[in-house]
C-alpha cells in the first residue's frame, strides 16, 4: 500500500512541478535583480504574455486531440502583414473579423491535409510554416510593415485600468473554457484525444472535430498576432519567427499532454506567464542574449519530461490490476 501512496504523491508533485518551477524562478530572479519583484514588472509580464497565452489556448485544442500545429508563428506574421498592408484604412470592427477569417482559412488548409489526406499534423504544419511565411514575405517584399494608428492605439489603451490586450485574452480564455468544459463539443474533444478509435465507435464525428481544432488554433494565432502587433506597432520580417516554440512550451508547461486527452485553458495561460517570466527575468539580469534559447530549451525539456513521467505513471496505475480486495 505504501508503494501506491508514494506513487500518488509523485503524481501530485509532477502536477505541481510547473508551479514549483515558477516559484523557484521568481525567487532566483528576485534575489539577483532588485527590479524584478515589483508590481509594475509583473503587470508588464502579464501584458507581454497575453499573445502567447491566447495562442497557447488555441494550441491546447490541437494538443488535446493528439495533434500539433507548428505554423502558428507564420500565421502571426501573415496576419500582421495583411493588416498593415490592406486593412489599415478600415475600422477594427471590420479588420478583426477579417483576420479571424484569414486565420480560420489557414487552419482549414492545415486541416484539409490532416483529415483529408491523413498526413501527420507535424509534417503538414511544418510545410505550412514555410508556406505561410513565404507568402507573407512575398506580400511585404521583406520590408517592415507598419500598422495603422487605430491598431497602435489599441496596444496602448486601457479599459478600467487594464490593458486591452489582457481584456482580449480574458475573453478568449472564457470562450475557450466554456467550450471545453461546458459543451458536448468540448467533452468530445477530450474523448477523441483519449482514443480516436473508440470515439468513432461511440458515434463521435472524429474527422469534423479534428478539422475544427486546427481552425480554432489558427484563429487564436491570428488574434495573438493582433495583440502582439498592436504592442510593437510594426511587423519586421522576423515577426512571429519561431513563435511556435514558446506557444507549445506554454501549453505543455500548463499541463496539456502531448499525448492527447489531458489539459486545459488555465494551465496554458499559466504556462504562458511562466515562459514570459523567464524571458523577462533574463532581460532584467542583463543576461547574454545567446543564453535565452538555452534557458528556454531547459524549460521546455523539463515540461516534456514532466509530461512523459506523468503519462507513464498514470499508465502504470492503470495497468497494475492487483487490488488486495478487502
Amino acid at each position, binding site marked *: 500500500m505504501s508503494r501506491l501512496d508514494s506513487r500518488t504523491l509523485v503524481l501530485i508533485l509532477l502536477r505541481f512541478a510547473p508551479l514549483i518551477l515558477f516559484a523557484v524562478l521568481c525567487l532566483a530572479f528576485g534575489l539577483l535583480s532588485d527590479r524584478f519583484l515589483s508590481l509594475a514588472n509583473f503587470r508588464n509580464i502579464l501584458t507581454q504574455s497575453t499573445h502567447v497565452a491566447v495562442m497557447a489556448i488555441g494550441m491546447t485544442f490541437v494538443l488535446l486531440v493528439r495533434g500539433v500545429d507548428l505554423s502558428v508563428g507564420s500565421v502571426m506574421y501573415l496576419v500582421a502583414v495583411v493588416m498593415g498592408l490592406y486593412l489599415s484604412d478600415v475600422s477594427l470592427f471590420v479588420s478583426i473579423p477579417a483576420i479571424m477569417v484569414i486565420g480560420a482559412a489557414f487552419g482549414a488548409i492545415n486541416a484539409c491535409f490532416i483529415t483529408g489526406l491523413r498526413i501527420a499534423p507535424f509534417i503538414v504544419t511544418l510545410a505550412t510554416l514555410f508556406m505561410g511565411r513565404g507568402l507573407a514575405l512575398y506580400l511585404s517584399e521583406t520590408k517592415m510593415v507598419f500598422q495603422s494608428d487605430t491598431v497602435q492605439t489599441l496596444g496602448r489603451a486601457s479599459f478600467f485600468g487594464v490593458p486591452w490586450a489582457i481584456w482580449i485574452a480574458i475573453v478568449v480564455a472564457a470562450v475557450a473554457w466554456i467550450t471545453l468544459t461546458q459543451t*458536448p463539443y468540448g467533452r*468530445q474533444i477530450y474523448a477523441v484525444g483519449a482514443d480516436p478509435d473508440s470515439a468513432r465507435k461511440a458515434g463521435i464525428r472524429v474527422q469534423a472535430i479534428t478539422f475544427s481544432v486546427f481552425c480554432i488554433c489558427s484563429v487564436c494565432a491570428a488574434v495573438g498576432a493582433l495583440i502582439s502587433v498592436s504592442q510593437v506597432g510594426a511587423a519586421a520580417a522576423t515577426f512571429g519567427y519561431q513563435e511556435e516554440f514558446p506557444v507549445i512550451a506554454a501549453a505543455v508547461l500548463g499541463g496539456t499532454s502531448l499525448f492527447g486527452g489531458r489539459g486545459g485553458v488555465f494551465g496554458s495561460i499559466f504556462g504562458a506567464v511562466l515562459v514570459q517570466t523567464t524571458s523577462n527575468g533574463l532581460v532584467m539580469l542583463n543576461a547574454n542574449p545567446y543564453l535565452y534559447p538555452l534557458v528556454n530549451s531547459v524549460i521546455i525539456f523539463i515540461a516534456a519530461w514532466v509530461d512523459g513521467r506523468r503519462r507513464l505513471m498514470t499508465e502504470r496505475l492503470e495497468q497494475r490490476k492487483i487490488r488486495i480486495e478487502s
Partner: protein
Amino acid sequence: MSELLLKISGLNKSFFGVQVLRDVGFELRLGAVLGLVGENGSGKSTTMNILGGVLTRDSGRIELAGEDVAPSNSRDALALGIAFIHQELSLFPNLSVEENIFLDHFPRRMNGLPFIDRRTLREQAKKALDLVDLKVSPATPVMRLPQGERQLVEIAKALTRQARLIIFDEPTTSLTARETERLFEIIGRLRAQGISIIYISHILGDVLHLCDDIVVLRDGRVVGEGSRADFTIERLVTLMVGRTIDRLFPEREPGVRPDSTALRVRNVSQPGVVKDVSFDLRLGEVLGVSGLMGSGRSELARILFGLDPYSEGEIRVGEATLPLLAPREAMDKGLAFLTEDRRGEGLMMEASITDNIVLPSLVERSSGFMHWLKPTALGQAARDVAERVRVNTKAIDRTAVRTLSGGNQQKVVIAKWLLRVPTIFILDEPTRGIDVGAKYEVYKIINQMVADGAAILFISSEIEELIGMADRIMVMGRGEVRGFFERSHFDREAIMKAALWD
C-alpha cells in the same frame, strides 16, 4: 411463450468472395437471454456486427419488433434500441463517468444552445448508475474505476439510450470472479425489465448458467438452436467443433522427475503484490496456478521472469540465483514467459509471423562477434517451429500477425519461445479468448514440451483447464499461496474455496 423482439432470417455475408455467413437465422424473445456460441471465425462477430450496424449484410432480413430494420452505423443501431458492448470497452478514462454515459447525447441547458446542463446530467447519470447498482459518484473519472465497474458504466450507457437489446461480446474476459457474478446479477435484472440480451462467450459454463436459449454457429451456419435444457457442455463442444471430442484435454503420461527441481522459489515478497511465496517446480511437471484475478498470479509470473522487482526472498534456477529485474538473464537460464496480454506485450502486431518468432533468438542465432543476422537460417527455423505449433498460414514471412485469429496469434507467441527451447515455461492465461479447437492444440503443445523434459508454470482462471492439464495446482489469493492440490486430490470446489477463502 412471450412475444418476439428480434427475428433474423436468411442472413448472408461474404468478404472478398469468401462466404462467412450462410443463411443464418434465429429468434430472440422479449426479455430473454440468448447465448451465441461458436469457435473463432464461426460468424458470431459478423452476425453481431451486422446487427450493431458496424457491417452491412449481403442479403437477409432483420426484424425488430415486427419491423424490418437495416442499421448502417452504430448510431442507427442505437436509435433502434440496439446497444453493442464490445469486448474492449469504448470508455474514455480521462472523462468522468457521467460524461462517458452521455457523451453523444448530453442534456442541454436550453434547447438549441450547445451548453451542457450539468445538474440534469448528474441526476440522470445517478439514475442510470442506480439501475446497474454501481455506487460511485457520477463525477469520478473512469480512470479510477476497476474493469468490472467500467463494464457497468457501459451498461448504464446502453440503458440511457433506451436499449431494447443489449449485445455482450465476451464481457467476462477481464473481470474478477466477483465482478462476473455481479454482471450476471445485473443481466438477470435487465431481463426482468423486459430487455433482451445476446450473450457471446467462450466460457460455456457461463452460457449454460445464464442463457434461456442458445444458438450454436459453425462455419457461418446455425448448427444448433434450442433452449438451455437441450444442451450440455459436451453437446455444445461437439456442435461447435463439428466432430466429437472425446475429451477436452489430451492425455499425458505423468513424467515428473521427483528430484529435479528446475525452479526453486523461497519466501518471495513484494509489499502490496505478493507475500511469502514459496514453491518448487520440477522438470517434467505442469504446475497449475489458480486464483481470482488480482490474487497476485500474473504479478508473481512477472517477478519470476525479472520484469517486476521483489524485496525479499530468493529465486533459483538449478544452482544459480536469478538476479533482480533481469529478463535477459532469466532467458539465458532457460526461462520463457507467455504474457496474458498477447496484443500489447506478446506480439508486434504489424510485423510478420517470422519476425515475431525470431525476435527473442536474434542474438543466439546470429554469427560472429558482430552478430550478423542469417536471414535464410532464421527463416527456416521460424518455418520449422511454426509448423510444429501448426500456425495455419502458408506465407509466414509476409503475413502480419494482426490479421491472424486469436488462436493463431497465441501459437505464434508460443512458437517464438519454443525456438529458444526453454526448460521453464511460464504461461499466463495461454488459452484466454481462443476457441476450443485452438485450445486443444495449445494443450498438445504443452504436453509435448513436458514430455521433452521442460517444466511448466500454467496460470489460468479456468479451473477445469488446470484440473485437466496440471500435475499439481497451487492456489493463490491476496498475493499469498493458499495451498497445493495433488492430482489425485483435485476437487473443483475445494480449489474454488481456497481461492475465495479470506
